[in-house]
């Protein structure tokens, strides 16, 4: 128990009984045991039971140790008068017992049992066994015989009935018979082996005694026959072997084999329960297994028991009895004649007619050309033989095709074949219909329409059908995820066709997609199934559907499954397109359910958004470990279609910017931004993205733009794909060209500005031709690199360092110049800007206001962007 408690984990489930002891604590003072008078015992109903002590009556009974209830026990009033004598009160033990005593664990458990009269003669098995055991081990071995003798007499209902019919114990059951003269007796009373003659009815037990005065007209009860025990043999001994029976051994019977069939044998007597004192033979233990005792009188006893061959029959002599088939032979006809002579119970009568023998018919004669092999036909056209077809039976061809199978024949045909007369009355439902209805039906069944119209479906089915049609109409995509009729491929195909039709908005999709070759009944059933299935498994909305994963077919092991986030970030392709078009917002935004940790929420002083949720992070679902979808997401992020293949890797920033996709890939590896020299610049610029953020106003830039505009699909395509309907409505007035122009304007404006400001610097840089120090070869550095350190520690690049230092000196002096230049330029720019600003609206003027609140700024920004959108 202690060990149990030590390593007991909540996971291991032991079955424990009772209430566990409270754990002992070291420093706790030993608790005083509860005094006896405070200990309470309750019965199963929760009532207190006072304990009186074992010797004073145990638990208190009744109500506070009294009988009955709170009111006490009211004795039945005794009234006896001259006219009405009081009946004698017979008290049963039950009157003095509580309910608990009658219960399962009480002293007299009451359960339904077979009462003695109805019990079968056979004593209950355990009882029997116990008795047999007692007999074996008893001091006086024959004791149980005495027990049996003084056993209480109880007769079963069967015995009762028999006695009423005149049966007496010891007699056989059956009609009384006349005694026939003994024809023959077994000539020798020697041992009989093998099949012994049965005790025939004529061979009564009293025969020997009664033979001389057998009157002609007297009838006798048949001889009692012991039921043959057909119990299975369990031992290894041979047939008929019995172990040494102490009862027999004591009586010193030296017979080798018990003779069951001779009526006087002990075995028989034992079987029949008779106790007959063996009068002859020596006493004491004797038998084959025992030697000759010291007290044995006769010394000539065959100690070693040599079996003499003379004891056996050597010739198949005449069988006793009828000599026909031994004792299993059917009884002679003489017995049949005997009428029942016994008493007949009242309420019963003797049957007059004799029991009819079962007639056994000979097997049918096989035709000469019968071949015990069945050949199946390839195709059986059963459409015209449809079972419940509305066509009148008269139209059925009188002779079915010879090769039509038995099951392909309609009942009417079968009847015709058998030559049955046609039952009077309408042979078809059609005849019951009114003529106009029939006419209409026939019109509907007109040739040309392959499928017969179904019987008008029940309104419920009709409604379901409509619901299914409404649910599936206009839906595209793969809705075949659920295959309800997977086992029957043809049916599944029909079901899918049905769904197709539903999606197309077909009204009678079910009828059209059903197999015309089926019977109407089948078709009706299938239609119903289809409609039900389509209603049950109607496609969920994609958002909802993504929350569920289909269970794997068959037995699914958890080992094969892996947890993956339920909501995956969607594919990047359309988002890339959206980014390229600068359509940020809905298209690039995804909102997922995310569960913060409880502690994290507490630390942030934020109520948990999903109280009671045990999930942390993104909700996960189990998917097959090797499901394609698990890898798809990876593929999405790592290699979104070709050009973006390794874009997101850290070391790719040297390559052309990701947005720029139309450039041939060959150029990319040779260009590395940090190593940009002025000579390379145009090339770099070429790789600038299309966002028109050109620092250098190169002509090539425009070329690139042209190229990209060629490759880019027309705006309509993107609009059709991405723009939501509301957007379209709002911007429907504006032309796409306008929008484009506006964009370009917006882009141009800062670029001009920029150019003005930075051109001197750019020019200076160009003339300087300062090669930027290459980044030090860091050890497998990924990602946007950290800028190169100021000092270049690698000796290999010391030259470059020197050069840089030299350049720096140059730079310094140039810097001053530059500064001046820029200042001048800046002033100019500022003046220009001021001029511009004057022209600009008042609202924008306010932006220069002294105290600008960020909220205002954002407000304005939004307004500006929205107005830009509107344009």
């Amino acid at each position, binding site marked *: 128990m202690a060990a149990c408690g030590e390593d007991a984990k909540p996971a291991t489930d032991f079955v424990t009984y009772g209430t566990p002891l409270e754990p002992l604590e070291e420093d706790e003072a030993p608790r005083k045991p509860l005094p006896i008078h405070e200990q309470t015992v309750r019965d199963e109903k929760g009532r207190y039971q006072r304990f009186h002590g074992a010797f004073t009556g145990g638990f208190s009974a009744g109500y506070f140790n009294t009988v009955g209830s709170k009111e006490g026990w009211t004795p039945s009033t005794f009234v006896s008068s001259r006219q009405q004598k009081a009946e004698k009160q017979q008290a049963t033990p039950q009157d003095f017992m509580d309910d608990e005593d009658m219960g399962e664990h009480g002293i007299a458990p009451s359960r339904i049992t077979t009462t003695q009269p109805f019990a079968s003669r056979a004593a209950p098995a355990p009882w029997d066994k116990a008795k047999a055991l007692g007999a074996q081990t008893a001091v006086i071995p024959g004791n149980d015989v005495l027990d049996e003798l003084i056993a209480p007499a109880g007769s079963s209902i069967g015995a009762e009935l028999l006695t009423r019919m005149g049966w007496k114990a010891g007699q056989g059951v059956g009609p009384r018979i006349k005694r026939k003269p003994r024809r023959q007796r077994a000539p020798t009373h020697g041992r009989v082996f093998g099949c012994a003659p049965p005790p025939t009815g004529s061979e009564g037990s009293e025969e020997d005694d009664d033979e001389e005065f057998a009157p002609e007209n007297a009838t006798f009860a048949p001889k009692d026959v012991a039921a043959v025990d057909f119990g299975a043999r369990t031992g290894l001994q041979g047939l008929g072997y019995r172990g040494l029976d102490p009862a027999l051994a004591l009586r010193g019977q030296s017979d080798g084999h018990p003779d069951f069939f001779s009526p006087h044998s002990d075995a028989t007597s034992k079987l029949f329960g008779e106790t007959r004192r063996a009068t002859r033979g020596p006493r004491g233990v004797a038998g084959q297994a025992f030697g000759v005792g010291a007290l044995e009188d006769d010394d000539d006893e065959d100690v070693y028991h040599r079996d003499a061959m003379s004891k056996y029959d050597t010739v198949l002599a005449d069988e006793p009895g009828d000599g026909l088939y031994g004792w299993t032979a059917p009884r002679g006809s003489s017995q049949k004649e005997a009428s029942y002579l016994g008493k007949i119970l009242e309420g019963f009568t003797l049957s007059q007619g004799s029991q009819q023998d079962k007639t056994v018919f000979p097997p049918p004669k096989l035709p000469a050309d019968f071949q015990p092999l069945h050949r199946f036909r390839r195709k059986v056209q059963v459409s015209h033989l449809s079972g419940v077809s509305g066509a009148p039976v008269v139209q059925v061809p009188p002779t079915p095709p010879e090769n039509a199978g038995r099951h392909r024949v309609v009942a009417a045909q079968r009847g015709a074949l058998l030559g049955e007369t046609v039952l009077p009355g309408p042979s078809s439902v059609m005849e019951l219909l009114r003529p106009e209805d029939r006419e209409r039906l026939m019109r509907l069944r007109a040739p040309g329409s392959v499928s017969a119209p179904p019987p008008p479906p029940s309104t419920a089915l009709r409604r379901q059908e409509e619901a299914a049609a409404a649910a599936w109409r206009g839906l595209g995509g793969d809705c075949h995820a659920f295959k309800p009729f997977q086992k029957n491929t043809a049916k599944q195909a029909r079901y899918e066709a049905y769904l197709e039709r539903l999606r197309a908005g077909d009204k009678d999709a079910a009828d059209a997609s059903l197999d015309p070759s089926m019977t109407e009944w089948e078709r009706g059933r299938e239609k119903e199934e289809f409609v039900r299935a389509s209603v049950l498994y109607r496609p969920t909305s994609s958002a909802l559907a993504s929350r569920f994963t289909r269970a794997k077919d068959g037995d699914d092991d958890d080992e094969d499954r892996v947890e993956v986030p339920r909501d995956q970030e969607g594919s990047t392709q359309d988002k890339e397109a959206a980014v390229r078009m600068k359509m940020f917002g809905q298209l690039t935004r995804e909102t997922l359910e995310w569960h913060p940790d409880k502690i994290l929420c507490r630390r*942030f002083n934020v109520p948990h958004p999903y109280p009671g949720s045990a999930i942390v992070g993104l909700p996960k679902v189990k998917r097959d470990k090797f499901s394609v979808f698990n890898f798809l997401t990876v593929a999405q992020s790592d290699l979104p279609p070709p050009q973006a293949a390794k874009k997101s890797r850290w070391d790719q920033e040297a390559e052309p910017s*990701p947005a720029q996709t139309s450039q041939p890939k060959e150029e990319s590896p040779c260009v590395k*931004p940090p190593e940009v020299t002025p000579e390379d610049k145009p090339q770099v610029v070429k790789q600038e993205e299309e966002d028109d953020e050109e620092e250098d106003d190169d002509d090539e830039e425009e070329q690139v733009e042209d190229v990209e505009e060629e490759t880019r699909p027309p705006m309509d395509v993107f609009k059709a794909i991405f723009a939501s309907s509301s957007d379209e409505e709002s911007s429907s007035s504006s032309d796409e060209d306008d929008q484009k122009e506006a964009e370009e304007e917006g882009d141009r404006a800062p670029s001009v500005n920029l150019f003005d400001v930075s051109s001197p610097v750019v020019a200076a840089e160009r003339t300087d031709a300062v090669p930027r120090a290459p980044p030090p070869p860091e050890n497998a550095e990924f*990602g946007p690199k950290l800028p190169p350190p100021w000092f270049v520690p690698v000796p290999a690049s010391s030259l470059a360092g020197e050069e840089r230092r030299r350049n720096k000196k140059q730079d310094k002096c140039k810097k001053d110049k530059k500064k001046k230049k820029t200042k001048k330029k800046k002033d100019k720019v500022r003046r220009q800007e001021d001029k511009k600003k004057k022209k600009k609206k008042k609202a924008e003027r306010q932006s*220069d206001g002294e105290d600008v609140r*960020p909220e205002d*700024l954002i407000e304005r920004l939004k307004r*500006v962007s929205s107005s830009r959108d509107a344009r």
Partner: protein
Amino acid sequence: MTFPLPKPQTPQLPQHLLRTIDCEQGPVRAVRFNVDGQYLLTCGADKSLKLWSGSRGTLLKTYTGHGYEVLDADGSFDNSNICTGSSDKTVILWDVATGQVARKLRGHAAKVNCVQFNEEATVILSGSLDGTVRCWDTRSRNKEPIQILDEARDSVSSLKVSKHELLTGSVDGRVRRYDLRMGQLHVDFLNSPITCVCFSQDGQCTLSSSLDSTVRLLDKSTGEMLGEYTGHKMKGYKLECCLSSKDTHVLSCSEDGNVYFWDLVEGCLSLKLPVSKAVVQSLSFHPTQTRLLTASESRVHVWSAEPEEPEQNDDDADSAIPT
């Protein structure tokens, strides 16, 4: 050489070099203001973190303990702690006054790009090259992170925390915003490795710079693009961007050694501040004043709106060394 002063532009830009600090700790990977802008933190490639006085530019303390270059730092709201992330894959929580390592948090599988305290400095959030953001509890002694946000499919390059939101920028080209209050994750796809993200001061917008040399201002709630700022060069390096303290301008580092200032609303370039010849890697805007820190190579420049040093409570600043 006096030019007629242009019309006074009231939202002034920090275009006057106030001070240049040579940090002497190798290339400065990140420079940060503390919560009220009095102190500077510089993360050096020589494994050290240095605390400077913002007004005087004097070195106050050096924190050593990282095993590799320090990539990002953040100061707690009460100036009592600093957290740093490093290339040695650890996040260290420093005690400011003693300079001791209060806690060293291991768990990232790769270098830690960005760290950030939450508002009450109860949680340190760190984004790493291994694509995860780990939330470390500073209150308990738990060695394990509270939660690991592994939604990013590539390195997490930048991370910002607002009251109940986490903004992460990842190299997989997505800006993710974890809304703790709503229990939602908003993913904005930008199709280019994100180098830096930040919230606007009013918390309504997010700014993200990416390697396609574009800084984008997105509406936080809908994900729509409110502004796009181009002109600078950000193609290979993880450079930073930020918003000015009053949300009037968008700032971004550039590989050409300048810091670009764009007007937030109009989207036009308003200033191109030449900082150095080398790449300007990090910048930090003063939380309240128009003051800018830029880090280029081993130097940190302090820029201010006024050319001359304003005589503002220097003594206070020095006396207020956090204890």
